[in-house]
């Protein structure tokens, strides 16, 4: 009996150790990995991050509360401690309490959740519009206010490295699978409306730093908007399974200050003019 218990107790201790290691050592950062949602570079992404943290904490506290009671009971109310079982089998009062309190918590959660959602869905007052079309397996961007449009596909280096048994080391490829040949260039500090659609199957346009994803559906035009606060390069991916190369149609957004953006626009127009 004793010997068998050793194995089992060892496994139980191991379980506790694994759990603790997770929570304390691994979770806050394994190497340089991100382990939490990004705060992003838009008001929306910040809102969604705050909302995420609020519900995460509420859930964590509820979970810890429930588990504390449960494990207290597991330690104290065991037969091996000669604990005699109580006889109670219900308590209307207790059951009303733990119906009403969760409802109140939910109402508390619903308030910020509603506010953030209402803000997200208000695309009025946009200063420029970009049409995004998903194809198997690339994106097309059309600047509806300028005469600019181009196709954006996985960059050639990633594409070579991602072939089955290419022998190339992904870590040595610049932004492996998150780099494109023609990034989407946008100005900062401007409310930009996106019209999102698809040509063949459903895709989903997602750049985490902007704070949302929106499906690109053939026959539908979805609306979304952004207002990027900080210049920089932001990367994302198609988020809806769209066939064999679903994992290989990334999105790169380069956000530029207005003057640099204007220069980029005139360069593009000149280039496209020359091409004609």
């Amino acid at each position: 009996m004793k010997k068998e218990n050793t194995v089992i107790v060892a496994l139980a201790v191991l379980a506790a150790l694994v759990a603790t290691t997770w929570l304390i050592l691994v979770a806050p950062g394994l190497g340089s990995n991100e382990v939490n949602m990004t705060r992003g570079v838009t008001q929306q992404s910040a809102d969604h991050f705050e909302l995420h943290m609020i519900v995460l904490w509420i859930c964590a506290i509820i979970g810890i509360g429930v588990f504390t009671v449960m494990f207290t009971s597991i330690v104290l109310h065991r037969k091996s401690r000669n604990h005699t079982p109580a006889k109670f089998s219900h308590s209307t009062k207790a059951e009303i309490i733990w119906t009403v309190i969760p409802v109140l918590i939910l109402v508390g959660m619903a308030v910020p959740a509603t506010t953030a959602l209402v803000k997200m869905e208000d695309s009025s007052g946009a200063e420029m519009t970009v049409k995004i079309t998903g194809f198997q397996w690339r994106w097309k961007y059309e600047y509806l206010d300028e005469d600019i449009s181009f196709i954006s596909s996985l960059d050639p280096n990633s594409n070579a490295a991602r072939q089955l048994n290419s022998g190339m080391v992904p870590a040595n490829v610049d932004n492996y699978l998150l780099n494109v040949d023609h990034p989407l260039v946008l100005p900062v500090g401007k409310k930009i409306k996106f019209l999102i659609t698809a040509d063949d199957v459903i895709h989903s346009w997602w750049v985490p730093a902007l704070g949302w994803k929106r499906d690109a559906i053939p026959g539908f035009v979805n609306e979304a908007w952004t207002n990027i606060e900080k210049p920089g390069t932001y990367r994302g991916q198609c988020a809806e399974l769209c066939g064999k190369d679903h994992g290989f149609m990334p999105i790169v957004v380069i956000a530029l200050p207005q003057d640099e953006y204007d220069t980029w626009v005139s360069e593009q127009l000149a280039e496209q003019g020359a091409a004609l």
Partner: protein
Amino acid sequence: MSTEVIHPDTHHVDDGHDHGDHKPSNFLDRWLFTTNHKDIGTLYLIFSLTMFFIGGSMAMVIRAELFMPGLQLVEPDFFNQMTTMHALIMVFGAVMPAWVGFANWLIPMMIGAPDMALPRMNNWSFWILPFAFTMLLSTLFMDSGGPAAGWTLYPPLVLQTGTSFAFVVFAVHMMGVSSIMGSINIIATIFNMRAPGMRLLRMPMFVWTWLITAFLLIAVMPVLAGAVTMLLTDHFFSTNFFNAAGGGDPVMFQHIFWFFGHPEVYIMILPAFGVISEILPTFSRKPLFGYGSMVYATATIAFLSFIVWAHHMFTVGMPLQGELYFMYATMLISVPTGVKVFNWVSTMWQGSMTFETPMLFAIGFVVLFTIGGLSGLMLAITAADFQYHDTYFVVAHFHYVLVPGSVFALMAATYYWLPKFTGNMYSEKWGKIHFWSSAIFVNVLFFPQHYLGLAGMPRRIPDYSPQFADFNMISSLGGFAFGATQLIFVGVVLHCAYRSKVKATPEVWEGSRGLEWTLDSPPAYHSFNTPPVVTHNALSRAD
């Protein structure tokens, strides 16, 4: 299955005049033509365990390819076939038939009935399944390959599947027929065959949760059948139900699919709730806390499951009002679910607990299912879901409710009732080793996937940016270990059925309550030929 003859004189309860042990001696008669609820239950359980390993080996392929960045083992299209098949096999081939197997074994014994109400249909609803799944699996060997559009079968993508698609649709139809027949049988049995005194509000929780599950199945399986039939005609007969260019609507498919799909997740979890509500009182030596509210909470969850479907579709571009409604309705589900968890904890509170393997799996269920439930509450928050949707955070969430949720409950049920089924005790030592290694590795497997999703890794991709490498490697290692651990389970079950020398008593467990424990272990081939007298203290509840 033990095939030894039970001698009438060892009967614990008088089964009536005929100590019917009329097991057909011929193998085909016994198994192919059987109408016995116990044999059919066994067939279901063996079938689902087989599917569990087939679906599991597909998961191993997935985790092996995701072990590190770059493609090393399979082409992306085959990877997509693996994710699609893994889900279809696990949902329809492993978890659902396993619950039907337990329903077959247990419901007649729990309500004091001699068998299921419709025994021949029972035979048929099982024997459809091996054919359905052979057909589904055979698509992997066809020229056009198996389905690769995800188990959700979204058009237009799924319409790019080759001719094998017709086989997939027909297989889904057959699974639906099987589920509907099984459900009708369960409902008919519960409503018509209860022993005198077994009033509805005296039934064991497992019977209650299955009754409600059966109604869910009858309501939604035809919806799925209709949806896949429309896909079939779009694919082969030029209809345009879901083709925008022809005036159809691809989003409509998602609405129809999730009208089936959301209740489907409760179909997989409600019987688990029932099992946990049976096991915790036994090993706490204390009645189930709040039986009445448990029944009403289950019914409420089932009702709510019909009106929350579009929370799977927050990113398709619904109007604001729609998004708000589906968010609020989804959040509401956490109330009855919370009642269940609190009642389970109260059942344990002030008990006199022991920790045999079924109890360990039940406690593991309560803890890990709660984690999965809480991440589900997070996913309900629409604006945050614009980030979570279709990432590994979602993968982590539903695997927490399905693996340490449904599957742990299935394990708990197996350890709990296996001595009753076989007449032998399993090895407690190996059961505990199985539990602890499962509990460790399931977390190593799925917990890192929360981080991956939050950091931005989409689901259903065969290759990923090196920033996701560490957690994917940990997750894969956990996956391989979890998979290997399940071989212990097979060993324990086989040992219990064929090798174990320790005979089980009729009660098996010190604190067990319910009619099935008044029968011998194993019960006679035909039990309760005359209905038992249902007394108060035979049941697992006191109120």
